[in-house]
């Protein structure tokens, strides 16, 4: 998961440092507000804990063992903001003192493992576990949160590596940094994470969180509301019209005609199955409405809102139906 030095172009490294600077600033302000004088020892010990969790092997079926990132354990224990700081400090130490990870890629690594994993894991866990969950539900919520958070972080790593050949190449078209395109980087990164590392992370996180709740609930930070999650969701919905500005079809979302344009023919199976399911809102528009650009943008936003609403509804129903 750690991207070493030399894999990302200077532009990408600078972009992620620029992206993380406000995140680090906001996190430290939030933590300062919450923790006051105690902040330095608590953060330092939290970061040491994150470091140690990353180092230890967890026993897995088959007599083997595996490592976990532990970001969800850290963020559930300390809160997501302190989690960002603690994991960033652990990653900085790994890069500077133990030469694990990179110095130029520290911004990107912090984005993937400290920010994405910490926040997604924390809020997915909060949404799934509800207010006072029973032991099985808590175990399931923490396992799923860790699984999704790790795979989300892995997807970000894959995209960061996969875009390098397109954005940084020599005059002769030769890739200068990570050489695999998205079509190779995504499956190469995602398959092991979906099939092996994800389940290990899920197992480890569920075991640790369940144990802590069983023995000493006071160790876990009281959960924040889901307000920040709503803010992120609304922000993403507002951003969706940006997709309309893009001139090309998103990668992997080609229709039959797009496939024909790209590879010259349509695979037989795709021809048979393509178009069987039209979707509730085909093409993200209501078919009875005109196809004007403004109207499309409006319905694109509306479709995103409906999609997000459905997810929220599923999560809500999940909370109501799952036995406490």
């Amino acid at each position, binding site marked *: 998961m750690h991207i*070493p030095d*030399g894999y990302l172009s200077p532009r990408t490294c600078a972009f992620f440092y620029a992206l993380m600077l406000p995140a680090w600033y906001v996190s430290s302000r939030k933590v300062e507000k919450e923790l006051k004088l105690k902040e330095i020892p608590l953060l330092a010990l939290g970061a040491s804990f994150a470091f140690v969790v990353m180092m230890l092997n967890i026993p897995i079926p088959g007599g083997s063992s595996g490592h976990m990132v532990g970001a969800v354990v850290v963020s559930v224990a300390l809160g997501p903001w302190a989690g960002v700081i603690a994991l960033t400090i652990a990653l900085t130490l790994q890069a500077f003192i133990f030469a694990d990870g990179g110095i130029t890629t520290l911004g990107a690594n912090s984005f993937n493992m400290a920010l994405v994993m910490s926040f997604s894991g924390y809020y997915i866990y909060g949404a799934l576990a509800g207010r006072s969950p029973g032991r099985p539900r808590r175990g399931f919520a923490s396992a799923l949160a860790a699984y999704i958070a790790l795979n989300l972080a892995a997807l970000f790593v894959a995209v960061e590596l996969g875009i390098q050949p397109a954005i940084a190449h020599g005059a002769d078209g030769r890739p200068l940094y990570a050489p695999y395109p998205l079509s190779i980087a995504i499956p190469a990164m995602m398959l092991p994470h979906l099939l092996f590392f994800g389940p290990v992370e899920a197992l480890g996180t569920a075991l640790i969180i369940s144990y802590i709740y069983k023995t000493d609930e006071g160790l876990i930070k009281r959960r924040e509301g889901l307000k920040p999650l709503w803010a992120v969701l609304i922000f993403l919905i507002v951003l969706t019209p940006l997709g309309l500005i893009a001139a090309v079809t998103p990668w992997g979302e080609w229709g039959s005609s797009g496939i024909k344009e790209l590879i010259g023919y349509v695979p037989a199976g795709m021809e048979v199955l393509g178009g069987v399911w039209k979707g509730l809102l085909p093409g993200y528009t209501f078919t009875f409405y005109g196809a004007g650009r403004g109207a499309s943008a409006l319905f694109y936003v509306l479709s995103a809102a409906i999609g997000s609403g459905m997810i929220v509804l599923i999560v809500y129903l999940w909370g109501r139906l799952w036995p406490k």
Partner: protein
Amino acid sequence: MAEVKLPAWLKEARDAPCLADGKDSAPGFLEKNLEGIASFFGKMVYFEGYASKKGLLQAVEPRARILGVLALVLACVAASGVVALSGVFLVTLAIALLSKVGLSALIKRVLPSFLFTSVLLLPVFFSFVTPGEPIAGFMGIYVTRQGAGTAFFFISRVSLMASLVMLLLLTTRQTDFFRGLRQFLPAFFVTTLFMTFRYIFVLLKVAEDSTLARKSRTFAKGSLRESQDWFASRIALILKKSLSTAEEVSMAMASRGFNGKLDAIGPARMGKKDLLWVGLAWFVFFLSLGL
């Protein structure tokens, strides 16, 4: 005195040796964890050895050392051609020799990174990933000139950057390193970083002690479920230890008058040789941009 009656199962003679007969078996998670912790502690001692030698990098003030090595790392990232990368390689080689860091020690430290990247880049050599002019091949699969060029360039860049970072780590005492970092990063961050570094050892010692305690009481492999429960309980113990230590440290700091402000001894003035080193390193960086 009453006669001691042994249970029947204890008097049974068995042909098979008992489980704890010293048979070699694949290392379990306990052994791997102990090995990992031991290698971590060993690495720290190993690092300190080179820092006390009298060499080029060791003679430069820590702040200038970090700034100079950073320039060379950036030169590697920015290099887009073989000439620039070869130039940085020669400079790195000269620095390693003048800093009395043996090449074998450096290679040994960089080898894992080199091997990892080489394995990862293996498919890039071949025509199915990088089409181009074939050099050698069999059964329709060829190593292409373009593929080999891309892979060699990438592997060289990554290994060179790892060597530079390793040179900095080998020639710098941890205390000097944090003192140097304080000039570039906020005091709050560096203090937390330094404290983290110190407490990693404390927490790892807790982990090592508990793992060793379990291993010394183990004569047969436990069930997976039991091992996992034990693992979870140890992580919870480490978390508990972290939070209680944080509480104690913050109380100790408050009782000694800590008011949230961090004062540190100001940096030593940079001498001529420090400035010369920084100037030369950044000169290499700017040269690499145009090559």
